[in-house]
C-alpha cells in the first residue's frame, strides 16, 4: 500500500461515499448481496433511443467501498453501449479477481481509486458488489432486447 496516489484514491472514495451523485431510491430491482458483511446494492440502467446508456443509478447499504464503487460505476456506464458497458464491467471484475493487472484501471476515471483495494482480499468483495449487480442488469437488458428483436 505504498502507492503514492493512495491518499488521492482515499479522497476519491470518500467523496463518492459521502456525496454520491447517482444514488436514488429504486424499486423492483433485485439486490446483489454480500452475506458476509450484509452489504447490498441494486443498480438501474436505462438505455436511450440511440442505443447508449442514458442514465444509471444505485440504491443500497454498505461500507464506503461498496457504496462509492456503486457511484463510480454509475458514472462510468453512462454514455456507453450495453456491450461496451459489459466489457468494461468484466474487465473491472477481472482486475479484482487478480486476472488482469491493476494498471488496467488507469483507463477508468475514478475507478482507478480501487487499485489499492484489488490487493486486499476481503475488501475486493465490497468493491465488486455493484459491478456484479450491473452485470445482472446488463444481462436482463440484453435478453429483453433479444426478445424484442425476436417478436
Amino acid at each position, binding site marked *: 500500500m505504498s502507492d503514492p496516489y493512495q491518499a488521492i484514491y482515499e479522497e476519491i472514495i470518500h467523496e463518492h461515499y459521502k456525496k454520491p451523485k447517482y444514488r436514488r431510491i429504486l424499486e423492483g430491482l433485485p439486490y446483489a448481496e454480500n452475506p*458476509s*458483511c*450484509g452489504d447490498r446494492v441494486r443498480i438501474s440502467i436505462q438505455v436511450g433511443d440511440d442505443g447508449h446508456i442514458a442514465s444509471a443509478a444505485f440504491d443500497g447499504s*454498505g*461500507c*464506503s467501498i461498496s457504496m462509492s464503487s456503486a457511484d463510480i460505476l454509475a458514472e462510468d456506464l453512462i454514455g456507453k453501449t450495453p456491450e461496451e458497458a459489459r466489457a468494461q464491467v468484466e474487465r473491472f471484475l477481472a482486475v479484482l479477481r487478480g486476472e488482469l493487472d491493476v494498471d488496467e484501471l488507469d483507463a477508468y476515471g475514478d475507478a482507478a481509486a480501487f487499485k489499492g483495494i484489488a490487493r486486499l482480499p476481503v*475488501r475486493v468483495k*465490497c468493491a465488486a458488489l455493484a459491478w456484479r449487480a450491473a452485470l445482472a442488469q446488463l444481462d436482463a437488458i440484453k435478453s429483453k432486447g433479444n426478445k424484442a428483436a425476436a417478436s
Partner: protein
Amino acid sequence: MKTTFSALAEGADISINAAVARELKKEYPIFRTLPNLVYLDNAATTQKPLSVLDAERDFYMQSCANVHRAIHTIGEEATARYEKARSSMARFIGAAPKELIFTRGTTESINLVARTFGETLREGDEIILSVMEHHANMVPWQQLAERRGVVLKFIPVTDLGELDLAEYEKLVSPRTRLVAVTMVSNVLGTINPIDRIVATARSAGVPVLLDAAQAAPSMPLDVKALGADFVAFSGHKMYGPFGIGILWGSETMLDRMPPFLGGGDMISEVRLEGFSVNELPYKFEAGTPPIAQAIGLEAAAEWLSSVGLEALGEYESALARRFLDAIKDIPGLRVMGSARQRAGIVAFTLENAHAHDVAAYLDRRGIAVRAGHHCAHPLARRFGVVSSARASFGAYNLPEDADAAARALADAQEAL
C-alpha cells in the same frame, strides 16, 4: 521480572498486571517485527509465543517422524513426544489421555460429535442450542437435522446478551438428547453460567457439549468439575499453532460412539470385507495426525498455565471494562450486550459508519480489530445488527491498547 498475573479484585488498579503483560509481550516475536501493532483481534486468533514456535521447530529438527508404527529411534521419539502432548493437554483440562482426541480445531471437534454421537439419534429427537452460538456450533447440527430429522431448539438471548435460563428450562423435554452451548460468546463476551446449564441437563439425563473455543484461553477448564460430556476448543485461539484442536469426550460416550473418519491408525484390523475399530483415543484419529502442531499446542498450554490462566482471564476482562468505560460517551456508539459476567471481548456499532470502515479506520492507526458478523449470523440478527466491529484482548495487551482504540474510535466517529 514477574511474569505471572495476579488475582485482583474487580475495579482494582491493574498496573501490576499491565507490567506483567508488558514483560510477556517480549516473548512474542511478532511484536518485534511490528512494534507498533495494537492487536485486538484475539478472539479470531492469538499471536504465538516463541516457546510455541520453538517447540514445533525443535520437533522438526530433532525427531521428525511419523507416529505409532515406527520401530526406529526417531519414530519412537516422535510417538513419545506426540503422546506426551496428549497427556499434557489431558492434564490441562483434568481429563484422561485416552479421552483426548486431537482434531484440526473446534469446528472439526463439533462436527466429529455431530457425525458420530449424532448418528445415533432418531427422527424427532431434540437438540438444544442457543441463539448466541458460533456457526461452528450451529451448522453441524443443522446438517444433522437435515440428515436425520432431529429437531433443533434455541435458548433465547436477553437484551443484556445473556442466555434466558428460564426459557432454557422449558425447552428441555423427554426427547432432548443433547445440549450444545458455548461457554463464552465470541461476540458479546458473555461468560455463560455453565454450572446451571449443566445441572439442568444432568438432572434430565441429557448430555452436554461445551464450545470452549473462547473459554480455553481465558479460564482454567476442569472437565470433571464442568460435568459435561464433550468439550471442544482450538489451539490457535489459545496461543498455539493453527491446524490443531481438541475434542474431549467422556470415555463412556466415546466408547459408545461409532468412529468418524476411516483410515490408518483408527483401525485394529482391515479385511476386504470390513474393518474393526482401534481403542480410544485412536479410534477417532484417522491418518497421520498434526504431530508438530500437537507438540506446539502443548507448549501453548504450558505457557498459559505458567502465566496464571485464571488471573489472565480477569486481566482481559479488566481491559474490556476499561475500554467500555472509555467509549461510553462516544455519540452513536452502541455496544452489543452488557452481560454481568464478561470476558475480554467487546463488539459495537457506530451509527452512520459501516463496521468495515470503522475497522479500516482503526487499522490505519495501527489497531487491528475485527468487523463483520463474527460467524454468528443469528445473534447479529437478534440484535438487529448486520455488521459490527469487535475488540478482543489477549495476554500481551496493555491498558494503553484499550485507550488507543477508544481514542481512535472517537476520532472515527467524527471522520467517517
